[in-house]
Every structure is written in C-alpha cells, then in structure tokens.
C-alpha cells in the first residue's frame, strides 16, 4: 500500500511539475478572454448610449403634441410628422399581414412537406441568397412589378386607365414584404426545426394526420421563434428608405392615406428631407423624427420579447 501510494504521489508530483509553471498563465488567459467578451458587449451598449444622448440633445426641442398632429411645413415651428407616421403605420400593417402568411407558409412547406432533393436545396440556397441582396435592388423590382404592373415582358396588367398599383401604399408595402420575406422564411424554418421530432412522432402515433400534426403541435411550438423573427424583420423594414424612394414614395404629403391605393410618405423619408435642408431648425426636427422612429422600433422589439416569453410559456403547458 505504502509503496503504491508513494509511487502515485511521485506520479502526481512529476505530472504537476509539468503543468506548474502555466497555471497562473492559464488563469490570466481566462481573464483576458473574459475581458475581451465584456468589451465586445460594452461597445454595443456604449454606442447606443452615445447615439441616444446625441439625439436627446437636439431631439426633444420639437417633441410636442403638434409634432404628431401636424403635416410637414416650411416653417419648422409648425412642421409635423403626422403624414409620415400614418404612412409608415399603413405600410407596416400591410407588410405584417402579407409577410406572415407567405413567410410561414413557405417555411412550413420547406421543413414539413418538401422532399429533400436537389430542387428543394436549390430553393433553399436562393432564399438565403435573397437575404443578402441590397435593398435598392428590391426597390427596382417593386417599381417594375407593383408600380407599373409588368414582369418585364408583355403588356402591363391594367384596370382601365391605371396599371399596377401606382405609387401607392400598396406598392411600398409589397416591395418591403419582398425585402423581408427571406429573413422571415429563414427565421421560421429555424423555429420549426427546433421542434423535437418526438412530438411529431407522438402525434402521428395517436393517428393524427399531417395537417393536424402541423397545425396543433409543430406550429404552436415554433410560434415564439417565428414571432421573434417576424418582428425583427418588420423592424428592419420600418427603417428602409432606399426601396420606397425608388418606388416613388413622396416627400410632401399633407394628408393621411385612406385606402391602400393612396400616395404616401414614410418616417425615414421625412427625416432625410429635413436633414438635407439648410436651416438648423429642420435638423432638430429630423432628430425628433429619429426619436419617434427609435421609440417605434424599441416598442416593436419589446413586443417581440414579451410575445416570445408569453407564447413560450403557453406552448410549454
């Protein structure tokens, strides 16, 4: 026994002598890595604080009731954001209503129904590629497809005198829908993939059809993830300027759209217009516009978190 313990002790001794010198260094490396990670996350937060502070300084001078009730004006003290807010609300409502069914439908098809063959993987690759296409390209596509109602060949789709949807809320919304669809599809697919196969098997095991399995088990389980992806995609769409300028969103609109075929302006366009004016007062107005845009964005993101928690809890029950 004593022999054995003696030999094992020397073993340990010789082993620990191999590592002894590096122990402090390893701890040091661990601390450095911790520091790098912390710095990484602080950069993001610091940037946000600097941005918020910068905007706060000029942004609240014009933050008043009439900023929300007035239309644009050449006089900064009475200029308001209402046309832009209403335009953005209209557009985003239609984007949400079209992108959700199409995006989730495509994701369900690809994950649950499609055979895993070359065609499917080709479609899959192209959806991922589309997510990386610059937004201005979608603007050009939207101009052709929705504003003019043509596919590039053959005659335009016309009802009477008017072809396509013209430069309307509808054209803007459908263009933005195309823009965010790849993101919605990929996010929904990830959410659907994360539903354990055992749940599907159990469902089939008790005799459920594929439709029953998908509608009452897979989709509810995947919903928190889908909603998160959806709202993050909408947050991207709300700040897009290039594609809707391309399809002809206007700059001076002193009324709110009443139907989807009315002309419109949007928050980022109004901000851009104010920033590019010579008078400093308009720059402050632009800052106020950015504050409103940021608040809208943060509200949407908060909604995403709340929905995720709430839906997550429900499907766990």
């Amino acid at each position: 026994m004593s022999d054995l313990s003696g030999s094992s002790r020397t073993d340990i001794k010789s082993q620990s002598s191999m590592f002894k010198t590096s122990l402090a260094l390893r701890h040091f490396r661990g601390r450095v890595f911790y520091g790098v990670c912390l710095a990484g996350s602080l950069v993001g937060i610091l940037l946000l604080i600097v941005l918020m502070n910068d905007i706060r300084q000029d942004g609240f001078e014009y933050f008043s009731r009439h900023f929300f009730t007035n239309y644009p004006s050449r006089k900064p003290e009475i200029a308001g954001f209402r046309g832009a807010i209403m335009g953005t609300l209209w557009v985003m409502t239609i984007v949400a209503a079209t992108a959700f069914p199409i995006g989730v439908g495509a994701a369900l098809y690809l994950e649950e129904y499609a055979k895993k063959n070359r065609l499917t993987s080709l479609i899959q690759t192209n959806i991922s590629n589309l997510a990386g296409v610059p937004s201005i390209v979608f603007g050009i596509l939207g101009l052709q497809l929705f504003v003019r109602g043509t596919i590039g060949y053959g005659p335009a789709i016309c009802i009477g005198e008017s072809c396509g949807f013209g430069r309307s809320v509808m054209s803007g919304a459908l263009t933005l829908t195309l823009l965010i669809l790849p993101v919605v599809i990929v996010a929904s697919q990830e959410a659907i993939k994360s539903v354990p196969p055992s749940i599907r098997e159990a469902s089939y095991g008790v005799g459920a059809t594929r439709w029953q399995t998908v509608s009452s088990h897979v989709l509810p389980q995947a919903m928190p993830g889908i909603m998160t992806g959806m709202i993050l995609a909408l947050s991207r769409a709300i700040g897009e300027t290039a594609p809707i300028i391309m399809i002809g969103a206007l700059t001076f609109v002193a009324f709110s759209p009443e139907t989807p075929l009315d002309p419109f302006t949007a928050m980022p366009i109004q901000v851009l217009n104010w920033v590019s004016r010579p008078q400093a007062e308009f720059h402050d107005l632009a800052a106020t516009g950015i504050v409103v845009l940021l608040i809208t964005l943060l509200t949407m993101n908060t909604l995403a978190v709340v929905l995720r928690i709430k839906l997550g809890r429900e499907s766990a029950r």
Partner: protein
Amino acid sequence: MLRDSIILYLVVFFMLSMAACGSSSDSSVSNLSGAIAIDGSSTVYPVTEAVAEEFQIANPDTRVTVGVSGTGGGFTKFCVSDTDISGASRPIKDNERELCAENGVEFIELRVGLDGLAVVKNKDNNYLNDLSMDQLAKVWGPASEDSVMKWSQVDSSFPAEDIDLYGPGTDSGTFDFFTEEVNGEGGASRGDYTPSEDDNVLVTGIAGNEHSMGYFGYAYYAENMDTLGIIKVNGVTPSNETVSNGSYALSRPLYIYVSINSLQKKEQVLEFVRYYLSDEGIAMVIEVGYSNVPVDELEASRRTVEESVQ
C-alpha cells in the same frame, strides 16, 4: 389560447393604426377637390412645397403631393402623364421633349424664380474676395487636376497654400450647372475635390479650413454666414437684385412645367398654378431664399396660363 393571443396582437396593431387615423374632415372652406401630382427638381422643391402647403390649407379637399426625383427623374414621370406639374432647375432637354411628344403630353414652361450659386470661402480667408470666371475655371477645370495645387498658381498675389475644394457630387443639378457655366462643358470638372450630396457636409468642410473653397445654392450660404464668406464672381456679389437681373454670372433659372391637358381637365391644377403665380404664391420664392423673376415676365407667365385654357 395561442390563437387568441395572435388575434389579440393583430387587433392591437390595427387599433393602434386606426386610433391614429381619427380623421379630421372639417367642413371644407372651398369646394375644390381632387389630386395634384407634382415631382421634379430638389432645388425647386422648397418653393413648390411652400405653395402646396398654403394651397392645401385653403383647399382642404384637394390632395397635393410633391416628390423629389430630380429634374430628369421628374420629366420621365411628367412625360408619361404620371404627374401634372414638374419642377426643373434647367430647361427641358430635346430627348425629354421628344418623350413628351411621343406620349401626347403638351406643356407650358413657366419660370418661377432664380437661384444664385454661391461660391464660398472660409470666414477667416482674406485673399479670396473676387474671382473672374477664368480664375474659377483654373481652379475647377478638369485640366487642373493634380497640376493646380496651390493658390499662388491661380493668382500670383495669393499665398502658396494648398487648395482644398468642396462641391456637390456628380449626380447633382448644381454640379451640372456650375461645370457648364464655368468649365464650358456640363460634367467637366477636376475630380480631386471633396464631393458630397449633403450641402451641410460641404459647409462643415469649408468652415474647417482657412484655405478652402466650395460652391452650392445661395440658401446654404445665407444660413451659415457666421462661418463662411462669399466670393464675388466677376466683381458681382450675389444678391436678390443681381441674381434677378442676371448681372450675377452664376444664377440659374427655376422652372415649373405644367401639362396643358391637366390645366384644361383638372380645375384644381389650374387653380394651383394660378395661386403659384399670384403675388402671394410667388412671394414664397423669396421666403425660401431664392430670387424673383422680373415683374413683366411674371405677367407674361400669368397670361400664358390663361391662354392655354381658352
């Protein structure tokens, strides 16, 4: 319960949008109604916007929309009857005229104002006071790239300091006009200057270097007189008077083009143009920082409008 919360989410979304919709359709002051679609130059935009704002207040049932597609972009829409009125910071080109003719769009051309281009320097600069067009061409000409680098090369009385230039980007109508007038060919310019589409960036740049120079619309100079100085061109300082009577070399015309078809068929367009050319409407040109056209030309424009609807 899951379905309920999705429905709840959608309902809330719609209610939010509808709540903000609460339309305020008061009893109208005038019975004029209908849409007026305007697009075109960003230079003419401030005037049109001001006129549209007042017109919309007086005629709440009309719907005036103004876009900013640039002079060329505006004509592409105007000549296919997408818009009723197009703003332009240069006369219509032959190919645009042909496009309008192909689509049967007849129009009248109305000059509503003039915009002086300001050639500016840093406030602290004391030698750049008056430049001739030839000197400007020497500074900005395409041949000067990489060769004229010091102010002393432009005029022997100037110090041997590095030239630092700021100007609008090549997409801008201001760039086209300046190069045409100064260098004799639209688009011909030296490339080694700091370009920006945002004139406020140019202001900041010039304010930061004593030996810098740049050009942009007069309104930007007027807003930044505390940091910038103006350079006379051929001995003339830009002012409302010198720009109006054409004695300042770098003044460009601001036009609106109006479709005759719209004037005849849409009462609201006719009323809008009448208001634009009225004393009250045309005063907006001064208010936003441009210069008036002479009174007799304005009278002639008013007659042109009335004749085109008879």
